[in-house]
């Protein structure tokens, strides 16, 4: 669905810090939302979590930088990082162009998925959340 110019794909889970989660088998893929990339604009640098490191829900797992500002990426789900998107190192603008596909950030082996999903939003809820932020 599209709300106020922002893409919000169905089937993903969303955090209040504007990260998305896609469940793929026993792993999750995470990234930042269209809203996040539009707010940052012109992303020039991405710091990815280390593969093998453990991340905790709503704790910092990396950084994205635009020309003007630094923003933290929060882990939307706790677990072990099993893969990161190395394309972002040389092409951080993928986050602006394709936040939900080529601009994915990390794959995580979750440790507490069922419980943590409850604190995330579905597409409908996230759409309402960002339209309130826009007011």
């Amino acid at each position, binding site marked *: 669905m599209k709300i106020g110019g922002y893409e919000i794909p169905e089937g993903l889970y969303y955090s209040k810090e504007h990260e998305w989660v896609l469940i793929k088998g026993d792993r999750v893929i995470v990234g930042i939302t269209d809203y996040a990339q539009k707010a940052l*604009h*012109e992303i*020039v*640098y991405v*710091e990815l979590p280390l593969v093998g490191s453990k991340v905790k829900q709503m704790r910092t797992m990396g*950084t994205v*930088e635009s*020309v*003007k500002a*630094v923003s933290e990426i929060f882990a939307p789900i706790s677990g072990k990082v099993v893969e990161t998107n190395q394309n972002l*190192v040389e092409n951080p603008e993928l986050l602006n162009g394709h936040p939900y596909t080529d601009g994915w950030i990390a794959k995580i082996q979750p440790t507490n998925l069922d419980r943590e999903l409850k604190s995330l939003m579905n597409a409908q809820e996230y759409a309402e959340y960002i339209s309130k932020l826009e007011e």
Partner: protein
Amino acid sequence: MSKTPQKTYLYKFHVQKGRMEVFAGFEMPMWYKGIIPEHLAVRNNVGIFDVTHMGRMLVSGPEAEAFLNYITTNDVSALTPLSAHYSTMCNEHGGIKDDFVLSRLEEEKFLMVYNAGNRSKDYDWVVNQSRSFDVTTKDVSDNIAMFAVQGPKAEQTLQEISSQNLGEIKRFKCGWTELAGATSFVSRTGYTGEDGFEVFVWDTPLTSPEKAVEVWNEILKAGKEFGIEPCGLGARDTLRLEAGMCLYGNDIDEDITPLEAGLGFVVKLQKEDFIGKNSLVKQKTEGIKKKRVGVRMLEKGVPRSRYEVWKNKDKIGVVTSGTVSPILECGIAMAYVPTEHATEGEEVAVEIRDRFVKGKIVKFPFYDPTKYGYQRKT
């Protein structure tokens, strides 16, 4: 600062086309298309900035030259009518009260253009210092619109709507012309490192913005064939940083002297007397302890204001401005380091979050001045 933010003549345009932010008490566009395309438009073609938020005052009278020589560090006597220079005003300790461009309109009439954030501080200071001089000061910030038209195609753009031949106005010279029929003062100056003009649309009270808006629109129209872009404060900042120019409040303030900031070329110590002279003479004799330098990152990472600069195991300085350079495609910064480390080519590290990222000290501007900037050869 808690007041309602002020709006410029172009507010409607900015809100419609740009991403707005409050800067120095004004609602200003941060960018329209984006900082990078706007930055590149200025380096390669031409861009236009609304800089009406800046402070502008007229200083006139029989003692205008003597007075300005007393409160500023540059030599006002060397300024012929229709010329401009960059300068600073200092406090008694030699700390910079502000940096600005001074234009001599007539023998006894000057226009001073200073930082938006220092509007009232500067005006009050100048008025207070002027009491024993035969001069008149007038704040014209809300009566003259100000745009910057910058880039290698700036002259061609403005020429299309100018009644006067702008080619006759050389760098740091000024003149009067009509732009789209509106009486305007133009100076061949700017804050981007590029050739270009700063345009002052005369007698345009903020309450009736029509004339200023029309000049802005006509410049955009005239520049269309050259690829003009309206540019926001974001590109203004990356452009001035690449050019090695100071931003007041970041790179210079009342605790830093022009000598430490590398602005010695606007400090004329042979002048009779001026505020801060004794302190500056003393510092010059004793030698400065720290100096503003450029740092170009050798590894990935974006240096930002207040990040620490390290040499081996020692913290030696602090970044005052930093960004990623759209031309060089790497991180660049300004920092103050002890004079013994302020050597071109010296390797340092900037602490970016938990990492030490390698960089080296370079001279300003950051770009190759034979390829970019007003001295470019191509």
